[in-house]
């Protein structure tokens, strides 16, 4: 439905304007002002998502809450916003995550607080922009513009090796998206408009489709990240401050998969079909190979970072299994499970991994180390914290009842329809993911308390508890009743599947 109230615009610009206001609070002597403004802004953002969800019409794949103005006439660029079933959950996800980040950084960030909060609010606005943009250039503007605040957040508030990590992150993602711009411009030349939907009916020859596919692939694969362009992620996640890691894991990575759904599948369906084996193989490598890599980690953040890669492998697998499934069963309706599984997997991963990063941030803030071997027996002094972490670890492992299960379950089930071995490799995550997650959990949280610092730890503060409770509630809610999420997806996923199976040759 269309409302006259520019809800999406408000969701984009409110945080950005708040960021400006925060910057005006000045130095760290007014840090609490900055914190409170950030908090208020993010809570308002979250509240604004309620009408977004309730007024969302689940029966139509059309864009809703549409806003469309000419932005730059000379370029033919529109300020076009709108959400469908695929992007709406992502918008909500963004606002929740920002609130969590604000809560989690309340005490851990002590220097340049205003700049920090501002950076994250700008990120929020831009991220919503990415998910809500219906114009390719607007999308790209947000997509790339986000690099600036996140680059700064890693670089300024990161840990020892932050410069390297931030530059690596920046170059990697910039590298990926450069060619996408060429593809978008190319499409625009032929469709005459930058509206993403105008690219859908475009007829493109196979070779052109493959080129565009590769351009998109680079952009999105880097963000997802897919093997072998994933190596920025462990560094960036590890060095970023807790909030940065959360935003990276919870949101940035999703943009990649979102890109596949919004661009690759509907714009170049034939190339996707042609190259789906590549995507599947890369996804499986992410799941299995990266899983093993995660086992070998000695750094908690790095381990979770690698686990992110593995989990996102599921999301990409879900996106690209659809062709095999339809080929095997001959029924497009069968592919829903896979694609919706991918969506659920993305959202679930955001919460569980985000929460784990917040958790590691809590520990890092107190013990100034991330090495697994420096921990041990954390449960004893911090039982509440440990319980939360156990929940999120279990979601990471994909335990039924938590959100992590839903996506994996759906994707494994549907990938069997496509190919037996794909399902087998995908299902191997059951063992591998639990191996690395729980082994780390064991070494960090269980065992004897050997260090006096650990024995002296206090359990998490009320603010942290609040942040964790929000995350835990969502994790459980999605795990127990995913239909609440799935129902908003159906129409859009169905539409997407139609588009992805229309030959454009």
């Amino acid at each position, binding site marked *: 439905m269309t409302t006259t109230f520019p809800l999406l615009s408000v969701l984009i610009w409110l945080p950005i304007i708040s960021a400006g206001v925060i910057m005006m609070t000045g130095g760290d002597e007014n840090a609490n002002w900055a914190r409170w403004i950030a908090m208020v802004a993010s809570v308002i953002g979250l509240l604004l998502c309620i009408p977004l969800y309730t007024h969302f019409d689940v029966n139509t794949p059309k864009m809703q809450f549409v806003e469309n103005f000419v932005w730059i006439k000379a370029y033919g660029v529109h300020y076009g916003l709108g959400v469908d079933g695929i992007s709406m959950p992502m918008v909500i996800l963004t606002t929740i995550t920002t609130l969590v980040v604000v809560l989690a950084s309340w005490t851990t960030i002590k220097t340049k607080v205003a700049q920090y909060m501002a950076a994250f609010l700008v990120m929020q606005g831009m991220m919503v922009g990415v998910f809500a943009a219906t114009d390719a250039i607007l999308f790209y503007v947000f997509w790339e513009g986000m690099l600036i605040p996140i680059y700064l957040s890693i670089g300024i508030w990161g840990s020892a090796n932050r410069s390297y990590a931030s530059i690596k992150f920046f170059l990697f993602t910039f590298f990926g998206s450069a060619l996408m711009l060429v593809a978008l411009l190319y499409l625009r030349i032929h469709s005459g408009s930058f509206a993403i939907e105008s690219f859908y009916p475009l007829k493109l020859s196979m070779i052109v489709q493959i080129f565009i596919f590769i351009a998109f692939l680079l952009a999105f694969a880097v963000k997802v990240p897919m093997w072998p362009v994933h190596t920025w992620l462990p560094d960036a996640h590890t060095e970023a401050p807790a909030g940065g890691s959360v935003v990276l894991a919870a949101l940035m990575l999703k943009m990649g998969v979102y890109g596949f759904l919004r661009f690759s599948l509907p714009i170049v369906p034939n190339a996707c079909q042609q190259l789906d084996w590549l995507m599947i193989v890369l996804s499986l490598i992410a799941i299995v190979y990266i899983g093993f890599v995660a086992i070998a980690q000695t750094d908690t953040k790095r381990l979770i970072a690698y686990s992110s890669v593995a989990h996102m492998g599921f999301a990409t697998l879900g996106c690209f299994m659809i062709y095999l499934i339809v080929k095997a069963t001959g029924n497009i309706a069968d592919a829903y499970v896979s694609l919706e599984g991918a969506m659920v997997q993305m959202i679930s991963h955001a919460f569980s991994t985000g929460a784990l990063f917040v958790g590691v941030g809590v520990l890092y803030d107190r013990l*100034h*180390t991330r090495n697994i071997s*420096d921990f041990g027996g954390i449960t004893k002094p911090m039982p509440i914290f440990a319980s939360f972490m156990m929940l999120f670890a279990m979601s990471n492992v994909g335990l039924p009842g938590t959100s992590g299960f839903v996506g994996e379950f759906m994707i494994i089930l549907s990938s069997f329809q496509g190919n037996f071995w794909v399902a087998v490799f995908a299902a191997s995550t059951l063992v591998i993911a639990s191996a690395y997650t729980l082994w780390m959990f064991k070494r960090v949280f269980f065992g004897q308390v050997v260090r006096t*610092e650990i024995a002296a730890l206090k359990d998490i503060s009320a603010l942290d508890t609040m942040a964790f409770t929000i995350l835990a509630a969502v994790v459980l809610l999605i795990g127990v009743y995913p239909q609440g999420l799935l129902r908003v997806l159906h129409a859009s996923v169905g539409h997407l599947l139609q588009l992805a199976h229309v030959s454009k040759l």
Partner: protein
Amino acid sequence: MTINMILEQIVFYAAAVTIVFAGIMVIGSRNPVRGALFLVLAFVASAILWILLEAEFLALALIFVYVGAVMTLFLFVVMMLDINLEPMKTRFVRYLPLGLLVMALVLVLVIFAVAPQHFGTAKYAVPQHASASYSNVKELGSVLYTTYMYPFELASVLLLVAIIAAISLALPSSRKRRLQRPGEQVQVKREDRLRMVKMQAEKKILPSRKWLKKR
């Protein structure tokens, strides 16, 4: 072919050969003073050619402006600066093949374009000689202040620039100015730029850090 034509050809070729020779000498002479003098020769020979081309005013201007002023300036500067010529000797010969190659290439490529097939008499007939009443100066003058008024004004501004620039550059520098001295800059030592200050290290070490160090 009239005698005039023959004469013209003799003059042309003589002047051309002179110019080329002078040019070679300009490049090749070790002493810039000699180079400058050969350049004067080239200018004079060119002036002859220009007269052949009925550009008397410009030919004279070339002599007056170049030979009279510019080259004098050159010589003046050359002599004012005490140039040590010794270390420069060997390089010329070493790079001669390269120079010749470049020159040959340029010549081939350019002459290919300006060859008679494009600019021969077939395409560009030799114009009739101007009548005796023809005045190059008058001709030039009549357009210079009318059609070409705009560039003429610009040229005057250019000369103004030259005056300002030359004066302000050549003016001896005043004492108080802060200067860059590259020699000193190059020889700067790290002690000059960075002062190491001994400070007492922070005493309070976080317990966890200590623990980490122990490992």
